[in-house]
């Protein structure tokens, strides 16, 4: 594993992604998702909304890192709020 040059932040990052995927699987088993239409222009399933929020979170982080002097934690907080909004009303 040393060749993968792990760091604590990236390990936490990948563990949370893995935990999200496992959680989504469990949620799907307990109550299968129903495709529906929210404020997004397309009808989505739960997994679609998670994918959209993770992808937009990546771009929120890039925007904050590249073009502002704000802390990365603000980007993380924004992404978390966006994820919740999207999962509930998207």
């Amino acid at each position, binding site marked *: 594993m040393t060749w993968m040059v792990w760091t604590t932040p990236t390990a936490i990052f990948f563990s949370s992604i893995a935990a999200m995927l496992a959680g989504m699987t469990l949620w799907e088993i307990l109550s299968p998702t129903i495709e529906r239409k929210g404020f997004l222009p*397309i009808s989505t399933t739960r997994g679609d909304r998670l994918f959209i929020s993770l992808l937009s979170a990546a771009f929120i982080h890039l925007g904050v890192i590249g073009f502002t002097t704000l802390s990365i934690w603000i980007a993380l907080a924004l992404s978390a709020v966006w994820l919740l909004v999207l999962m509930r009303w998207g």
Partner: protein
Amino acid sequence: MNNKVLNNRAWLLVLPMLVLVAFSAIIPLMTVVNYSVQDVLGPNARFFTGTEWFHSILNDASLRNAFVRQILFSLTILAIQVPLGIGIALIMPKRGWQASAVLILITLPLLIPWNVVGSIWQIFTRGDIGLMGWGLRELGINYNITRNAGDAWATIILMDVWHWTPLVAMLCYSGLRSIPEAYYQAARIDRASKWAIFRYIQLPKLTNVLVIAVLLRFMHSFMIYAEPFVLTGGGPGSSTTFLSQSLATMAIGQQDLGPSAAFSIIYFLVILLVSWVFYTTIMHMQKDKNPHGGA
């Protein structure tokens, strides 16, 4: 309610593929993410740099220019190859030995390795020995791909159109062949014009293959490397240096593993976003057209 039993155990059959993809894509990608937040100098000398590489990559003027060039290139070749491919597919013979002969002829460029395509065009466009370069010069046109950025661009686009339009044409041809004859009979009864047949029968039936064609061509062209590298080497100056060549220079030429890892991730995210938007939009358009599913 339907009585279909949903059996998710079928997903277990995907496991072997998942293991393969983990080794060939997921683990390497995770390693790239790890590299992107560090300055790795050797097996035992590495420093955590956080978001520094991302900041410098996003604010690098030459990379931004390469990005703009890349977008321009992909849009240009899509705008040429998709209509041209449809046009070629429409005039291709439909049956008999002519159909096979034409198919083989137009497929030939696809069989040539990318480096060789670059070499072919490099020689073809030389002013002293190349047919095209020499011919244009004899006609009094000041054509020189190593000196004029415009000539270099035109040649790269021409080369890509020559190399990849056959793919679009073949996909469209297979799409056109799968339209049942009954549609054309109905159109003849209505005395539909050629344009109306194209607009209301052929084009809608081509949507599926066009999605694949646009996606494939976009991804290919967005990652183009070997052909312009051999043809122009990214020059004159940096006028034809595209993203993957900038990445290769950074990662292999300068051994800047941290910055190039950050660059790779940004590059990957852009491709992921564009492909997803393309795919979703077109799939969504289809769902609107026939809400009960089916093609």
